[in-house]
């Protein structure tokens, strides 16, 4: 009931819709757990984001206005409303990583993959973004790729070794 004009679907398939139904079920369709629901859904949407048609589907299934769902998506850095990539690279933006040199880390990625923050590689494989501290200060500077944490990334070689695991 909150949807808007469209000619067919770009991302949503019946298969994906059924999986979304399952996720919503797991959270007992509880609107106060919307963030968790959206995070789980984002993980199974290709390019790891919540497109409008998916947000609309969630809003109808859970009877929450689309505008509210979007408010939540846009509020949290962990949720994206634009397509990212197969592998989402997150750099910690907190003080500890800054002190231990996360700019070197960022520059290494930019050199290796040719992307800056909030950008995806042309093949849609990698996306780079900053994120709040994910608690890896002991091994900083650190990054996260699709949720897996890599630390002590002080050289370009160490960054490359981590990236090479995702091809």
């Amino acid at each position, binding site marked *: 009931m909150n949807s*808007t004009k469209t000619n067919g679907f770009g991302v949503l398939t019946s298969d994906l819709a059924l999986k979304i139904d399952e996720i919503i079920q797991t959270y007992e369709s509880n609107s106060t757990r919307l963030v968790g629901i959206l995070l789980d859904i984002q993980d199974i949407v290709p390019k790891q984001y919540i497109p409008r048609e998916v947000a609309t589907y969630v809003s109808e299934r859970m009877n929450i206005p689309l505008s*509210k769902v979007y408010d939540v998506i846009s509020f949290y850095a962990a949720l994206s409303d634009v397509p990212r990539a197969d592998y989402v690279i997150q750099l910690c933006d907190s003080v500890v990583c800054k002190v231990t040199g996360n700019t070197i880390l960022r520059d290494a990625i930019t050199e290796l993959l040719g992307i800056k923050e909030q950008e995806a590689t042309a093949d849609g494989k990698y996306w780079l973004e900053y994120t709040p501290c994910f608690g890896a200060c002991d091994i900083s500077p650190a990054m996260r790729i699709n949720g897996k944490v890599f630390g002590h990334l002080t050289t370009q070689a160490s960054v490359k070794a981590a990236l090479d695991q995702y091809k």
Partner: protein
Amino acid sequence: MKNIKIKIDNIDLVVPEGTTILEAAKKININIPHLCYHPDQAIKANCRLCVVEVAGSKKLTPSCSSYVFEGMEVQTNTKKVRDMQKGILELILANHDQDCLKCLRNGNCELQALCQRFNISKTNLEDTVDALPLDDTNPCLVRDSAKCVKCNRCVDACQKVQEVHVLTHSHRSIHYNITPAYEMPLEETFCVFCGQCAAVCPVGAIVEKDDTAKVWDAIYDTGKHVIVQTAPAVRVALGDAFNLPKGSIVTGKMVAALRRLGFDQIFDTNFTADLTILEEGNELIKRVTEGGTLPMITSCSPGWINFIEGRYDHLLDHLSSCKSPQQMFGALSKSYYAEKTGIDPKNIYTVSIMPCTAKKFEAKRPEMVTNGVQEVDAVLTTRELARMIQSAGIDFTGLEEDQFDNPFGIGTGAGQIFGATGGVMEAALRTAYEVITGKGLPSLNFTEVRGLEGIKESTVHIDGLDLKVAVAHGLGNAKVLLKQIDKGESPYHFIEVMACPGGCIGGGGQPIKSTMDVKQKRIDAIYHIDEDLPLMKSHKNPDVMRLYDEYLGEPRGHKSHELLHTHYHSRGMKYNFSELMKQ
């Protein structure tokens, strides 16, 4: 209720428990600056302009969200308070497009007034207007986020009052903004263009799309015969723009001003409101006696039509097939009137003065065409008419009263009350009762359907039939009645829905600051006009009856069907998820 003794700026006063500091201060003529506070809305407390000092508290206190307590001592004008308020204003201004001369709200802007009050002309902060693209691709409203002060009044109107849920706040920190989901332009959302957001915006971030230039061009075009119709709700609100007391009835002055502006003929939409009653009343009688889809719902309010065509498109059979009075007038202007005057419909330029932004959308619907031309060429809101009058240098308050022209100049009281919630229902009942029973009404006034209660209902005994009727104003209330229909539990035969709270007198195109108090005054004025009119029933309108004799034949006849009725259709806005799941 308990009374509380407090002191504001060393003035003693007693107010009921549950009063906010801001409201209490207003009672002793202290206007604490504010932007997000609105008397008809929930407390938001996000602009922080209304801060005051409360004895015993080190921090400044927002007065809009703080309730009085016994012995409270408030200072509203200390250096600390003023410095803070000035600082907040400068910050807001630094992120606000300051090209005031280009803004439709110039001279009528709450931010501008506050800056004047605090003597701020230009902030010494660096300007950082970080805005979304201008949204001006729909025919009704323009949203300019460069002017938005993020007060959230529009969000309140869209979500809580209308329950349309298009506008929301989104993102956070410096990216915080007011937008539809996924920053879609309004016409690609379920927006109904009711304009309630524009009516509460303190600045020029949401305004009506200005069509005055188009109308001036038509007036100056010697090849065009420019006629104008004025809706019943305009004449009780236009005076606001000229500082007349709220609820002033300015029908005569409005007609005089329109004549001075250069319109060739000035007509009354009340005439086609009467016509609507004859068509709609007969449709209702037919549905009740011959077993048509019930309840039948009125179709005069284009915001309401956009709503049902968008979200509840499976219930369209319940809508009356009648066009709105605006479009009935438009259709007649390009047919009956053209024939009567011998003017080519192509050279007739029909303007409407409406309290409504959605009427602009309605006029542009592709099916609203008669004799190959658009029925209504331009729609001006009450605010736009006021601007034209001001622009022409007409001293409105000094004008001598003038009268509507014929053949669309006579409107009955029934047509007049279309402007207030419950009015269409009452007008329809006045006619339906007499048509069905052949007897005069015991009392003319169906007071149960009047007033500002959200949903009103009544039962009318007509010749052995208990006709159950309901009236809703504000789309949130309409939704309640729709859900009943959806469940098959609606007990009603006939429902009137007006998209805007209070009906058309509270329309999104009415002068700014139409609070509930003001709406009540306009409603009183509408019923006052009704009582003063010699004719109070639509079927007693001699010109309407002449129109049927000369031209239309009978209500719901062939000609009527062609000109005065239409088909409502789905806006096709929904994702078809059930179709997807079949794959």
